[in-house]
């Protein structure tokens, strides 16, 4: 009897706070004379956002795909976050941090007074609980399909002595100080901690709902209750429900958020895999925004009064070569000849590709990372469009008309590659004009295409990468670091170029930022001399929202935060 009235009181108090805050926010906006248009930010309402796919599940530690991260980013926070609208890591749950001289010990000073959605206190113990959780994954959780990002940054696990981890320990020296020790310097740390995969999750909920208990049979991983029904973080939105039949994840505002609370009452991510359907649903008003706008629609949507939010290009599309060093594959050995590789590079008309196929703001690429990343070199060897030169080179190499099996993915739109079929056809025509014979191979993106290409089955293939954080190694290290025995990955035909591998290693382990930048520039020059593939373009992907939506800041990392978003009427 006692409790009912008090709950009503609490609810109305919460509404009051929200209203007051909204009032503040709008007055800030007004006095700032912002260029955001007239609408004042209002609290309340529901926003429905059209996603291209379902999240795999909602425990970001097991996530590696954009749709999982899109949702979990709203529920969770990490020690570090990303600067809004940028690529640099900024403090989030950690207020600041210090690095020891040798670059091996990080001391994080944590934000105080933060609570998880289940009421658990956020403190140094909770941070260390999470780090230890990752390090102590066992069984299926150590499979690369489960914990990709942990392995990419830290290496192995406590349970895999043959693949040691560079993580050593996490110590809670007091309630708000966590000290993390590594066994090796790496340029990925601490920037990588801004990745959703390293979100700090509620230790109570993790334990209660059996978060590490991945099961599964030969066909698939089965995720525990935690990842499906009880993801618990500190973020501005709380998980409410997930209707899998209809592909809808519903989040609600976290009233007890430590910072400025979210303006929306409810945020719904609805899966609409077809790009056309997404557009028409927005036009019909049943969703308020969607991601992966087709380049063809940028203009027409704007003309209709929608807001197309273009992200800065923070990605690379490339055509990868495979000279056939990979045992068990039969790639075209002609690609081992630098002249043939150069012929391909000269054959591709990147200007036309950028102008005709990619959205406005796309740039032709001269190396394998975007210009905004530290370590980008202006003075790499370039290969301009010159079909005659391409034909000549091919003649000199004596392999005119050689057949290239050209792999491209189907039914997928990537931020760096909005329309793979069109890209394939144009490049394929370019190469045919230069005297190559093209044998097309089309495969569905995941897993067939990725598996085939990464196993070295293609002669040439289209692939790319959107950066996870501002770090050169995240681009060129991912592509060209030594995979094993002085060889690059199978994707690039396991080519052997020790000078590139060493340059990358040296740069990654260099603690001084200025020196590191120079080392990465050198690596870029070496790579473009060797030419393991042709960098093609950096393309600006976009999202679109309805006219009455404000506060959504496009992120080059495709890591948009919905807390400041509001919707009028």
């Amino acid at each position, binding site marked *: 009897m006692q409790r009912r009235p008090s709950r009503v009181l609490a609810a109305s108090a919460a509404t009051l706070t929200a209203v007051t805050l909204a009032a503040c926010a709008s007055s800030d906006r007004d006095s700032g004379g912002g260029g955001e248009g007239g609408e004042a930010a209002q609290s309340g309402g529901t926003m429905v956002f059209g996603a291209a796919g379902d999240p795999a599940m909602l425990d970001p530690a097991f996530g590696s795909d954009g749709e999982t991260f899109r949702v979990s980013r709203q529920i969770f926070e990490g020690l570090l976050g990303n600067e809004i609208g940028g690529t640099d890591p900024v403090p989030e749950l950690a207020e600041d941090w210090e690095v020891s001289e040798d670059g091996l010990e990080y001391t994080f000073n944590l934000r105080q007074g933060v609570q998880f959605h289940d009421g658990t206190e956020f403190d140094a113990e909770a941070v260390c609980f999470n780090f230890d959780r990752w390090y102590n994954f066992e069984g299926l959780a150590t499979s690369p399909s489960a914990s990709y990002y942990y392995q990419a940054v830290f290496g192995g696990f406590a349970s895999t002595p043959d693949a040691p981890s560079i993580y050593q320990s996490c110590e809670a020296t007091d309630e708000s100080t966590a000290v993390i020790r590594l066994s090796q310097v790496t340029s990925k740390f601490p920037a990588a901690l801004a990745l959703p995969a390293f979100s700090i999750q509620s230790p109570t909920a993790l334990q209660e709902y059996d978060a590490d208990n991945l099961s599964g049979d030969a066909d698939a991983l089965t995720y525990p209750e935690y990842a499906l029904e009880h993801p618990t973080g500190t973020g501005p939105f709380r998980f409410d429900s997930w209707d899998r039949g209809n592909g809808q994840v519903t989040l609600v505002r976290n009233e007890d958020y430590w910072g400025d609370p979210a303006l929306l009452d409810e945020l719904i991510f609805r899966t609409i895999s077809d790009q056309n359907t997404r557009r028409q649903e927005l036009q019909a008003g049943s969703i308020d925004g969607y991601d992966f706008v087709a380049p*063809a629609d940028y*203009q*027409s949507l704007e003309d209709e009064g929608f807001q197309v939010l273009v992200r800065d290009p923070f990605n690379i599309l490339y055509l990868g070569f495979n000279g056939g060093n990979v045992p068990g594959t039969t790639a075209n050995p002609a690609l081992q000849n630098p002249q043939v590789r150069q012929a391909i590079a000269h054959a591709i008309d990147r200007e036309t590709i950028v*102008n*005709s196929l990619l959205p406005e703001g796309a740039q032709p690429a001269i190396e394998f990372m975007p210009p905004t990343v530290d370590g980008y070199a202006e003075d790499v060897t370039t290969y301009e469009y010159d079909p005659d030169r391409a034909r000549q080179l091919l003649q000199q190499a004596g392999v005119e008309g050689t057949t290239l099996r050209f792999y491209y993915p189907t039914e997928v739109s990537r931020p760096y590659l909005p329309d793979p079929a069109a890209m394939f056809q144009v490049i394929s025509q370019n190469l045919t004009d230069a005297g190559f014979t093209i044998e*097309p191979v089309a495969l569905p993106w995941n897993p067939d295409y990725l598996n085939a290409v990464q196993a070295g089955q293609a002669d040439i293939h289209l692939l790319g990468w959107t950066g996870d954080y501002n770090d050169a190694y995240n681009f060129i290290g991912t592509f060209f670091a030594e995979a094993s025995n002085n060889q690059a990955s199978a994707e690039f035909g396991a080519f052997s170029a020790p000078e590139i591998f060493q340059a990358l290693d040296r740069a990654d382990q260099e603690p001084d930022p200025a020196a590191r930048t120079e080392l990465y520039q050198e690596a870029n020059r070496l790579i473009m001399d060797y030419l393991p593939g042709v960098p093609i373009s950096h393309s600006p992907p976009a999202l679109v929202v309805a006219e009455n939506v404000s506060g959504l800041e496009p992120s080059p990392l495709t890591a948009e935060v919905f807390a400041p978003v509001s919707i009028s009427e």
Partner: protein
Amino acid sequence: MTAMGDVRRQRIDELAARAGQVPEGEGGVSLVKSAFRRLRRNPVAILGAVIVLVFLFVAAFAPWLAPRDPLAQTLLGEVRPGSIPGPQEGFPLGVDQLGRDLLSRLVYGSRQSLLIGVVSTVLGAVVGMALGVLAGAFGGRVDTVVMRFVDIILSIPSLLMAISISVLLGQNQYALMIAIAVTQVPVFARLLRGSMLAQRESDYVLAARALGVKRGRIVFGHVLPNSLSPVIVQGTLSLATAIIEAAALSFLGLGDPDIARPEWGAMLSTAQDFLSIRPGLAVWPAVCIIVVALGFTLLGESLREALDPKFRR
């Protein structure tokens, strides 16, 4: 007989039974000849035949009829995301999203689309007929085994079957043809078996058997030729289905991986992305598919009527 597909079977069997029926009162004129005479008087049949012939002509003489190279990305430089050059001098229907002449692509596309339709139907018909002959000629256990197998295939809805096969064989145009062919196999198998069973009891077979003619000769010399007319009817109708099904598989992303090669189904499904900018890119291939399918259907239906004694009034 098993339960499933009974209904579908009945229709096939009805068609099959007609082969056994000898036309009355048309002494001396063969079934096919008289059917052909009726066809010539049927305007619907003529319309169907004209459509089919026109498209076959276009397909055969595509290189002479198409104004341009269907692969040349001539106007690619003028294409921008969100704007595709429209009809203009030298490009009567405009160009596609990669600056290629739409008319030339439609003309060449007829080749690929008809080829897929014809090859898959012929393949389905040949394999189906072989199974049907096997079952019809030997009967007994062979019949049971073959028909059980056919029933299993028949119990999977055809599009699901085609999808499964395309996924299995990977994405290439042969897989596409095989996938469509497999869905046609049971139809032809039942058709031929049914019509052979219908004739087994007919007078001329009994007479031949009484005269001591060998089984092989009866089957291949008498029964099979007389069973062909329903197969031709079904084949004509199946061509329409095959062309539409090929378009559906292209739409599902299971078509020819060499998407530069013009094919109506693939052109149509790609054009969905540009429906608001240049609807013609979708409308023209759609019209081609519809008209050709219509042509085969009209022809097939009139053939069916021509062969059906019920309609000979």
